[in-house]
């Protein structure tokens, strides 16, 4: 186990970065250097190390603490969105693979259509009515994930359906539901796990974009995206405010992408390109 990890630096780095991200996010639930919403106007716009580890923002709030809580907010929103999208998409994919025919054509066309609307825009559409917030962000990201997972699972499931042991199961009179549960799902789960990791990175990027536009969690809850949008006003006076949240997003996404690549390599040795 450890040796196979050491032989795969991508997987190892990805795993370490991702675990670190989760650790920071979970730690923020019970400990941060300072309360992330505590304002100290006298300490405002201080550079890193002069007040707190990473400096302070325009209200004198501790950036390191905000960044930690931001990790939790960003990660939990993205996790919920991907969980929702992956579950729905996988269900649609395996269902269509079992039924085929006209359903397949219709569902795939619908997927194309949903895929044509970028999640930022669907979040804006939703936000115009139900108001922006975490719920809107989760739904908008999840809606975009559904076709991604539906296409992936349909393709993978169809390959399994053409295997001989599935033909044997059909010959034995097994129902399509049972075949899907016993043969299809377990055999495509690796590909789904890899995809979940990669889409989680994409979800973090999208969530950051949504919060940057004010379509994510409402203030005062700190999110990486809104920290960047706050920083925009102080690019000249306090450039460090723009540096750390972006770095956090990039590191989180990089870690998840590397983990996904590494997992693909580990779980699916056929696809080495």
């Amino acid at each position, binding site marked *: 186990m450890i040796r196979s990890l050491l032989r795969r630096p991508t997987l190892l780095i990805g795993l370490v970065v991702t675990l670190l991200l989760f650790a920071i996010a979970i730690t923020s639930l019970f400990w941060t250097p300072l309360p992330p919403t505590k304002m100290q106007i006298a300490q405002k716009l201080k550079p890193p190390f002069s007040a707190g580890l990473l400096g302070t923002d325009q209200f004198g709030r501790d950036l390191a603490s905000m960044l930690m809580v931001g990790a939790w907010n960003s990660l939990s929103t993205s996790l919920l969105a991907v969980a929702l999208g992956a579950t729905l998409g996988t269900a649609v994919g395996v269902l269509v693979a079992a039924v085929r025919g006209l359903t397949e054509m219709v569902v795939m066309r619908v997927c194309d259509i949903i895929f*044509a609307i970028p999640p930022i825009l669907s979040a804006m559409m*939703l936000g*115009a009515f139900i108001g922006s917030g975490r719920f809107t962000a989760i739904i908008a990201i999840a809606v975009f994930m559904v076709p991604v997972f539906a296409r992936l699972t349909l393709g993978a499931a169809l390959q399994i359906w053409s295997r001989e042991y599935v033909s044997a199961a059909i010959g034995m009179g097994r129902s399509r539901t049972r075949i899907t549960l016993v043969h299809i799902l377990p055999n495509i789960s690796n590909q789904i796990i890899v995809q979940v990791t990669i889409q989680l990175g994409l979800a973090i*990027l*999208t969530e950051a974009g949504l919060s940057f536009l004010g*379509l994510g969690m409402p203030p005062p809850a700190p999110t990486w995206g809104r920290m960047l949008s706050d920083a925009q006003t102080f690019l000249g006076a306090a450039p460090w405010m723009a540096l750390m949240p*972006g770095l956090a997003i*990039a590191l989180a996404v990089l870690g998840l992408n*590397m983990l996904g690549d590494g997992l693909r390599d580990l779980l699916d040795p056929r696809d080495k390109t």
Partner: protein
Amino acid sequence: MIALISRRLAGLIVTLLLVSALIFAVMGLLPGDPASIILGTSASPDTLAALQKEMGLDQPLIVRYFGWLFGVLKGDFGRSYTYGVPVAGLIAERLVVTVPLALMAIVISVVIAIPLGVQAARHQNGPVDWIAGLVSHISIAVPAFWVGLLLIILFSTMLGWMPAGGFPGWSAGLGPAFRALLLPAIALALPQAGVLTRVTRSAVLEVMNEDYVRTALSKGLPQGRALWQHAFPNALIPVVTILGLQFTFLIAGAVLVENVFNLPGLGQLAYKALSQRDVVVMQMVVLFFSALVITMNFIVDLAYLVIDPRLRAGMR
């Protein structure tokens, strides 16, 4: 060939119609009625009913959809609630910013990614490959709008070489207009270039192992020529596919980057329409972006036929 293209075109039209119906249905079915949004909570029921009638909101959704659709087909996109001007004009004004921005970003990402990807494949597992891999990994992970912020800090506030944002308009001349679009286009291009580099590398690697490349090399063709003349054209299909698929993300990035650089493009229009709850404008901008994405994928489909003559026979 013509039959094939016309069949594709019919598919494109059906998809566009379905997208328009979906967008209209979402905007129509969601809670919150535009008339009460315009009037606010203090309006009397009579005023509300009168405005609903004026806006046609008392009609069933399907009737409103076809009314809207025929309007759109005739070029009448409706009237903005907040600006009080036709939406078509608003969109046309913004398109001349967003479309050049997106095109510049595509060109920049192709110019970076294709040579980098090809060189990485040529020196597989060498230092160039390693650096290209690292750079593309990182550039995929950074958000375009953050790159935009960093570019502003570096080139505008610190060095003072470039404008920090805003758009002088094309009437100010090509030079200033392109200057205003350059940093945003770079910010938008970087993540795209990362994806494109990886795809180019793996596509070239795959065809490098084909017999015809080996033949070309054993004939004594220099490696560079074998690569560019024989391997590269055959590696183009996956590269073009990704260019098309990435277009959705380019559009999403443009919405954010326009806001960072305060560019009066479609993305900024959508953002303003959202904060003013201008449903007519929202609807049209979303439709426009989606139509752009769908048309782009259609063009990619057609590009296959140009790139690979074999597909003309295969894709009937």
